[in-house]
C-alpha cells in the first residue's frame, strides 16, 4: 500500500504520479481518478486557496487511510493545490489503485466527498471586476459526505 499526500502551490502531473502509485502492487487492475479544476462562469477570474498547514496534511492522510481500509486499495494519492489558481487550472488530484474498477471509482468518490467536508481548505473567489468573496460551504457537499457515514461516524 502506497499513500502519498501533498499540499502544494505547484502544478502536478498525472503521468508522473502513476508510477509511484503503481508501486502498490501487481494485483492492481485499475486506477480511479478525479481531477478538480477551477470552474469558470459568472465572471470568475481565479480562486485563492488557503489552508491550515499541518492539520490539512493530517486530515488528508486520514481520509486516504480510511479509503484504503474501506475499499481495499493498493494505493492512494491525494494532491491538493493552494494559492492563486486561474479558471481552468487543476486544484485537486485523487488517484485510487484497486484490484477492480468499482472499488477504485467508489474510493475516488469517497475521498472527494470527505475532502470537501473534512479538509481545512477555504476558497476565495476573484472576479473580473476586481470583487472578491469567500466561497460558502455547500449543503450538497455535507449530504454527499453523509452517504458514506453508515457506521455512524461523523467523519
Amino acid at each position: 500500500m502506497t499513500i502519498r499526500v501533498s499540499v502544494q502551490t505547484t502544478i502536478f502531473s498525472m503521468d508522473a504520479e502513476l508510477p509511484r502509485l503503481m508501486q502498490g502492487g501487481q494485483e492492481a487492475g485499475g486506477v480511479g481518478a478525479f481531477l478538480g479544476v477551477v470552474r469558470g462562469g459568472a465572471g470568475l477570474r481565479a480562486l485563492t486557496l488557503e489552508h491550515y498547514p499541518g492539520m490539512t496534511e493530517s486530515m488528508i492522510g486520514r481520509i486516504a487511510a480510511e479509503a484504503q481500509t474501506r475499499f481495499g486499495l493498493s494505493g492512494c494519492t491525494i494532491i491538493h493545490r493552494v494559492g492563486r489558481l486561474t479558471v481552468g487550472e487543476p486544484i485537486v488530484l485523487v488517484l485510487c489503485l484497486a484490484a477492480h474498477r468499482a472499488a477504485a471509482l467508489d474510493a475516488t468518490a469517497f475521498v472527494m466527498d470527505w475532502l470537501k467536508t473534512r479538509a481545512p481548505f477555504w476558497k476565495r473567489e476573484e472576479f473580473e471586476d476586481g470583487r472578491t468573496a469567500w466561497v460558502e460551504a455547500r449543503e450538497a457537499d455535507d449530504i454527499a459526505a453523509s452517504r458514506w457515514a453508515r457506521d455512524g461516524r461523523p467523519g
Partner: protein
Amino acid sequence: MEGVPVITILYFAWLRDRLGRSSESMPLPEGARCVGDVIRSLAGREGEYQAVFGTQGGVVRCAVNQEFASPEDGVRAGDEIAFFPPVTGG
C-alpha cells in the same frame, strides 16, 4: 514562563480578514474549561470580535490541536485553538 497558562489562537479565511490578524497568544481566560468558554471570552471583546464570535458565531467552526472540536470540548494551557468558516476545499 513556566506555569503561565497560555493558548494560541489561529484565525482563517474571512475570520482572519475581519479580525485583521491570523494568530494571537493569550492567557487561558479565567475559569475557561472548554472551547465555548474561549468563544464567550472573545465575543466579549470590542468591535469585530463581538460580531464574529457573538452574532455570527453559529457559522464559526473550531479545531483544538488540529482536530475538529465542538464548544463542549475541553481546552488546556498550551493548546492551539483554530477558528474558521465551514471548509470549502476539493
